[in-house]
């Protein structure tokens, strides 16, 4: 798994790629938790590069959604591969994470 984050004053875009499983989800959760404190807790997860996600990854995403919303922000998503989309959907996460057609649209969806 690789994580890169780009922070602008109003939003942090976290791009994740590779495998998100019980071995890597901890690092994802830590990274997301850090960023949830910045930019008004306005977070965008770009999942386009993720080719595998297990329930450990879902846990990291849910933890971040809760944390960000408690701070008045949110975690929104853009980009997802079909297999990972099915995992999100079967777990009720397509309802939890607001989706946008691309990273720019997700970033622009937050109030300035």
């Amino acid at each position, binding site marked *: 798994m690789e994580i890169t984050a780009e922070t602008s004053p109003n939003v942090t875009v976290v791009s994740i790629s590779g495998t998100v*499983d*019980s071995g890597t989800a901890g690092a994802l959760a830590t990274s997301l938790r850090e960023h949830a404190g910045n930019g008004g807790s306005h977070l965008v997860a770009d999942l386009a590069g993720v080719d*595998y996600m*297990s*329930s450990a990854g879902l846990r990291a995403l849910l933890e971040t959604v809760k944390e960000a919303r408690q701070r008045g922000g949110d975690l929104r998503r853009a980009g997802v591969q079909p297999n990972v989309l099915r*995992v999100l959907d079967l777990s*009720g996460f397509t309802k939890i994470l607001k989706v946008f057609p691309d990273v720019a649209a997700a970033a622009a969806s937050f109030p300035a």
Partner: protein
Amino acid sequence: MSGVTTPGTLEAIQAFVVDGCRRAGADDATGFDLRLAVDEACTNVAMHGYAGAGPGPIGVVLESDGTWIRVTITDRGVSFRPERVEPPDLAAEAERRPLGGLGWHLIRQMTDEIEYHSDSDSGNRLVLGRRIKP
């Protein structure tokens, strides 16, 4: 394959399942699904079955007759009752969703057949089956 339940083994098990599914002629989506089901089950063995005890032995065998793929997972951790694991409330708002509790739900979604057996002599055995041809 077999090993002890460390992150490295869990990663190797995923690769083993993906490879076995491809050899059996399953499409990529089916390989993804079985990888996920087996990964969830093996992660549970590491996290719950051997909780406190540290890494323990785990075995994974994949078989296919061209119509089904069956993966058998064996371990010596604590036994439990998979059929008692409650399904999650998928319609709940994020704020009310608990962290965790999705592993068995995903295992059920990704497989067509689940068999579990446990006794003190032979340990725990979980068989996950998936139909690959009609």
